[in-house]
């Protein structure tokens, strides 16, 4: 290791408070984008899932095309289209909403599949039993299917949330003021790229690892319940 090594850590610890003050502020936007996109994905995903389970073929077709396209193209490309592409056509969307819409629409395709799998996993016999007891289909949904389905869907949905947290880093390319965006600015300012990206890495780990632990806990709880 060259003589730069001891200097590296000295500089690192000296600058750390400054880096953290900038980046922790940006973390707020990161979480905002993540929650916003999550909300979009959960709602839009439900609509797509219901379309896919619909009886009319054209409705199912729309859902299928949506899912195929969203899952067959990179999220980054979708973000570019929404931010740069629409702006080219005269529709200007600011960075944070663009990121939320882009990541949300992308996520809706994955979430729709999670919903579908959860609902289909509930044995048909349960629906039949509920109906023969005299429940209306809606009541059967409310009291029998959804409670069980939600328990099944929670772990994959939480996994999706964790990956969504990481995907917010893509929002930096559309100038959303989240962690990566500020990190790159700090690097141009200080040229201390390794220091800063190390801090960034640790920041993301501090956010994502607790979430992953939560998911693992939910998985275990679910299996115990079964």
């Amino acid at each position, binding site marked *: 290791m060259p003589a730069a090594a001891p200097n590296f850590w000295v500089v690192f610890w000296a600058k750390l408070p400054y880096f953290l003050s900038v980046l922790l502020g940006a973390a707020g936007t990161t979480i905002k984008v993540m929650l916003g996109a999550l909300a979009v994905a959960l709602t839009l995903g439900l609509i797509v899932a219901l379309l896919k389970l619909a009886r009319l073929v054209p409705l199912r077709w729309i859902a299928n095309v949506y899912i195929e396209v969203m899952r067959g193209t990179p999220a980054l490309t979708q973000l570019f289209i929404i931010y740069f592409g629409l702006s080219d056509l005269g529709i200007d969307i600011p960075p944070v909403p663009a990121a939320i819409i882009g990541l949300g629409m992308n996520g809706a395709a994955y979430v729709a599949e999670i919903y579908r799998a959860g609902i289909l996993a509930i044995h048909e016999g349960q629906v039949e039993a509920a109906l023969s007891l005299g429940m209306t289909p809606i009541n059967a949904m409310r009291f029998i299917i959804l409670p069980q389905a939600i328990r099944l869907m929670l772990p994959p949905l939480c996994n999706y949330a964790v990956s969504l947290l990481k995907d917010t880093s893509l929002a930096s390319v559309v100038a959303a003021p989240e962690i990566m965006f500020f990190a790159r600015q700090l690097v141009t300012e200080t040229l201390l790229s390794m220091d800063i*990206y190390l801090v960034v890495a640790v920041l993301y780990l501090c956010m994502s690892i607790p979430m992953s632990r939560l998911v693992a806990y939910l998985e275990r709880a679910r299996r115990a319940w079964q």
Partner: protein
Amino acid sequence: MIEFLDVYRQHFGEWVPELLVACIGTLQLMALSFMLAAIIGLAIALMRVSRSRLLQAIAVVYVEVMRGMPALVILFLIYFGLGGLGIEWLKFTSYQAAVLGLGLQGGAVLGEVFRSGIEALHSGQMEAALSLGMAPATAMRWIILPQAGRIVLPPVANYAIGLLKDTAICAIIAAPELMLRAKDIASSSFRPMHLFVLAAILYFIMSYPLSIMARRLEARLARDR
């Protein structure tokens, strides 16, 4: 709408060949990263199921760290971080950084996939092999891994599709692939919408066959059980 499509008619001849060449870059990047990820993944999985507490711990930490960060951060750490330290042999090109970054993270993903494949096998298989006098390594080689390989094919195919899409992120560190080319042409021609939609179509064409294959593998596995 008509004017929109008209632009394509005008520029098709100049844009498409360039983008297709960039697609080759994308596919190459994906293939190299995949191989690196597969090798690392196998090593990680074997470490995870090994008897050594130390190896297990290393594998667990590796997976947690690599999966806990966005791919973008890993790419930046390698390209800008390591590159900025002033050490010659750490100055990777954007392409090398891309392969390394995606490969390292992929190794964590595939490591978990391979591990669950190995663990999904009934422990009776290992016991039968050991009782016949096979050393654990022999048992792994001839009994466990061949069976695990079949089980993990669908998730591996799904990983490959995700990898293809993740190559787009490498445009941000200026690695030569499709998204970067699209961005460049978009800036020089002032037609971002057209080019990004074209890029999206090309990604879709590349990923669709993989999707079909993945689905077929899943169906075949479900049927065989």
